[in-house]
């Protein structure tokens, strides 16, 4: 559209798709939304979400963000619950390898763009990387207040007392804060944000992370962002400070005691093992320890 004389091919990859599937006008709209999201950390920017060739709940929001930011020299990694080899991760990786022709990887340090569903990689991210989160319900206040007009006002007024009431109800019922994922955070001392359904184990990684973090919610049509080196604080109480999950066991495969572990039932007698949820991290540790 910007070219005066040349009729540029619809795609550099030579197939029938525009680069990274979305048309240029849609990408511009998402890009403008992302710039506002970065300028107002933690604030949810409405955007004209498009229908993607897969159902809501499979990462349409994250895919639209990825499509808008992706360039020909990017290296893409996609994880689902930490794993590179699950259906959702494999199909999204193939989607962009077909529609954008970009290189893909499963190694965290090699990726420039990482699209993720429900985990932050264990390997520390660098300043040159962008982490794209798939978000089902972007509004942290939604379970308390169903009306969008009301939650907008609550954000405008910083009326976040109900979030603490919700956490307090946990304490009253269970004796501790039982919220284990999608644990609400305050971004740069202003907006309360849903970090997407990552385990609260990953919340500390959001704080002052060197990587840019972008969030896309496809069904709810919202974008939000946490810039690099931004304070992200998990909500808590003085007498019930925020704490992450701990395991008595270590990973059955790589022996890690520092990573987030999935519980696997391994026999009919209910025997169980724990393994790393981050498959790349686990594989890397196996190579290092020579197992």
């Amino acid at each position, binding site marked *: 559209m910007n070219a005066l004389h040349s009729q540029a091919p619809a795609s550099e990859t030579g197939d029938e798709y525009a680069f990274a599937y979305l048309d240029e006008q849609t990408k511009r709209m998402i890009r403008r939304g992302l710039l506002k999201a970065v*300028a107002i950390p933690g604030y949810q920017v409405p955007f004209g979400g498009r229908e993607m060739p897969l159902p809501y709940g499979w990462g349409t929001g994250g895919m639209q963000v990825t499509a808008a930011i992706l360039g020909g020299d990017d290296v893409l990694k996609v994880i689902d619950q930490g794993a590179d080899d699950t259906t959702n991760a494999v199909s999204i990786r193939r989607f962009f390898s077909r529609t954008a022709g970009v290189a893909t990887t499963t190694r965290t340090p090699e990726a420039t763009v990482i699209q993720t569903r429900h985990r932050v990689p264990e390997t520390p991210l660098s300043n040159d990387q962008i982490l794209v989160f798939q978000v089902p319900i972007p509004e942290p206040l939604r379970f308390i207040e169903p009306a969008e007009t009301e939650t*907008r006002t609550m954000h405008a007024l910083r009326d976040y007392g109900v979030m603490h009431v919700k956490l307090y109800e946990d304490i009253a019922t269970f004796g501790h804060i039982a919220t284990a994922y999608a644990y609400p955070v305050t971004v740069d001392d202003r907006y309360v944000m849903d970090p997407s359904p990552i385990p609260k184990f990953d919340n500390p990684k959001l704080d*002052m992370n*060197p990587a840019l973090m972008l969030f896309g919610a496809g069904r709810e049509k919202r974008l939000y962002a946490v810039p*690099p*080196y931004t304070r992200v604080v998990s909500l808590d109480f003085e007498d019930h400070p925020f704490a992450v999950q701990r395991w008595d066991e270590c990973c059955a495969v790589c022996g890690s005691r520092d990573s987030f572990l999935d519980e696997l039932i391994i026999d009919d007698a209910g025997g169980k093992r724990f393994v790393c949820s981050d498959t790349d991290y686990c594989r890397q540790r196996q190579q290092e320890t020579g197992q």
Partner: protein
Amino acid sequence: MSDAPYLQPAFERPAEAAQQTFRAALRALAEPGLARPLPPTPTLERLAPATYALCLSLLDADTPVWLAPAFDTPVVRANLSFHCGCPVVERREQAAFAVLDAGDLADLSGFPLGSERYPDQSCTLLVQLERLDGGEPVAWQGPGIAGQRQVDLPLPGHFWKQRDLNGDFPRGLDVFFTAGQALLGLPRSTRCLAPIREAS
């Protein structure tokens, strides 16, 4: 059409250059105060390559743009209309983007700042400067900056006052400073401390 005297070239490879420009802009806003290079772009009269590149990659029919008098020429209007399809508006209140130069920074009133409920509905300023350094250093803090960053944009002192007047977080103006082929971001979230007087 072919002999229209006004029309000038834009991006050679539109999809690619628009993406590269956007990524530089995203990074500039995510890490305020660091200058970022942009892909090679032609100039358009007084619009420097970086300013023109931002227009080409971000503007379209959905984004009314306000041009400062210095940039409001028939050629600029014709080319922005042709390449971007963006309406050029007369009133600042209607603008989603505005193109200014250093001389326009004495008065930043009138541009949309967004509302408390929708702070994203604010104007983005593209401010074209001669260069992105050599001015009085100002300490920037906030999201995107680990600790503190000294930025020495050559800006008139009244810019900082204007920025304070036209911003009450989360409402406010986001600024891209451009010079030549480079840009530097100043989002509303950045806290700029009073200029530091040098001892000399």
